[in-house]
């Protein structure tokens, strides 16, 4: 790519969690979670709603802080309030509700951080923006407002927006859950191509097909702990934990 790269800092691409707990009042949503994600690894988190998987993702991305435990993302100690903001702009996040900026067109969404945070000129930012929009197949919709795009297209723009700042890690929080079924494929296809390119990804999803085909490792969460984990063929083919068996059979019925 000939365009400028915003992130020249040497932040790592791995994640280390040890003894992570999270309480909301009296409710303990995460209990002593330990997890390492390697550089370039694709980890998929599955589990029933309320199992803590989204909270875990939000802690890793810096949107929530853990109550106890150590969270080190790309070398940044997220559990230290003073240092946690260092992660901003170095990781990407793709949300269930897209969270595109409705007052900006697709290109404007993708280039906002490039211009305001990385102080690129409009020409530099637009070139970079068009390149990432092309990456997700949305360059022909660069000047459409989010409201003029389908859900799948909006989510692809949201992925492009995350990619624009050259993140080291991308978190996906149920990125396809709000989409009509026929639009899921275009988003998972983009996610798969990012995985193929070696992006470090942590993905919360209900798309078992995506987990099966793309994950290096699948984690099953229940009641705030990682109940079982393994390569997708093992976890789906031969689940060990009774909760995993129960969860997978319920999904098969649906």
């Amino acid at each position, binding site marked *: 790519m000939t365009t400028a790269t915003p992130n020249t800092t040497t932040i790592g691409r791995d994640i280390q969690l040890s003894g992570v707990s999270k309480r909301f009042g009296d409710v303990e949503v995460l209990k002593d979670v330990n997890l390492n994600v390697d550089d370039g690894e694709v980890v998929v988190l599955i589990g029933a709603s309320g199992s803590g998987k989204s909270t875990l993702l939000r802690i890793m*991305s*810096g*949107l929530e802080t853990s109550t106890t435990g150590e969270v080190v993302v790309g070398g940044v100690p997220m559990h230290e309030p003073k240092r946690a903001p260092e992660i*901003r*702009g*170095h*990781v*990407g*996040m793709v*949300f269930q*509700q897209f*969270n*595109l*900026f*409705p*007052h900006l067109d697709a290109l404007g969404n993708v280039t*906002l*951080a490039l211009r*305001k*945070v*990385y102080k690129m000129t409009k020409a530099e930012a637009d070139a970079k923006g068009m390149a990432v929009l092309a990456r997700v197949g949305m360059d022909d919709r660069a000047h459409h407002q989010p409201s003029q795009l389908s859900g799948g297209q909006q989510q692809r723009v949201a992925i492009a*927006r*995350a990619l624009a*700042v050259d993140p080291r890690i991308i978190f996906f929080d149920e990125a396809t859950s709000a989409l009509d079924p026929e639009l899921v494929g275009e988003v998972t296809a983009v996610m798969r191509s990012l995985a193929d390119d070696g992006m470090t990804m942590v993905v919360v999803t209900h798309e078992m097909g995506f987990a099966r085909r793309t994950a290096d490792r699948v984690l099953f969460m229940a009641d705030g702990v990682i109940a079982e984990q393994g390569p997708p063929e093992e976890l789906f083919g031969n689940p060990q934990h009774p909760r995993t068996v129960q969860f997978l059979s319920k999904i098969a019925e649906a």
Partner: protein
Amino acid sequence: MNVSLIWQSLPFLWTGFLMTLALAAVSIAGSTVLGLAVAALRTSRPPLLRGLGRAYVELFRGSPIPITLLFVYFGAALYLGYGVNLFVAAAVGLSVYHSAFIAEIIRSGIEAVPVGQHEAAQILGLKPTQSFRWVVLPQTVRIAVPPLVGQYISLIKDTSIASIIGLAEMMKVGQSIVDRTGDPVSIYLTVAVLYFIVCYPLSLWVTRTQRRAI
């Protein structure tokens, strides 16, 4: 209806009309600046500041404008020891009163921006002030402008209340002509038409933008 009386009165009403426009313009500016400041208090973190903002809003929402105007005009004379200019007193009273409503319009506009917008901006690396300027504010403006203009229409009509402290705006001028000529129908109708000419285009504009927003 006495057309020749209306015709003769027009130059006098015109000076009142200009005074009304000037008072409305100054008060719209004043109430918007004050309203922004109070909305900032209302949406700030520290409980004391939030409480202050809340108290301000409740105080002025809960008292009639004439009281506010009389309080500013005579209160200033009493406590500052010197009389305030009528125009200044009216502008301060109207600004303070309407700023309470404007603060609430702006606050609800800020709070209507979903939390996901803040989160997306944070992850992208925008600092809180950048996030407010480039993500929250443009959406707040879109949400708040139609009700804000509605509030301005109320304010323009409320300038007529300045007649009670004796400011020679359009209402007061109309009253004195009626006192002299004894023809309330012709004069007040003319005054009403002049207010309508100012307010109606704004009202049309609000209706149009609201329809477009849906």
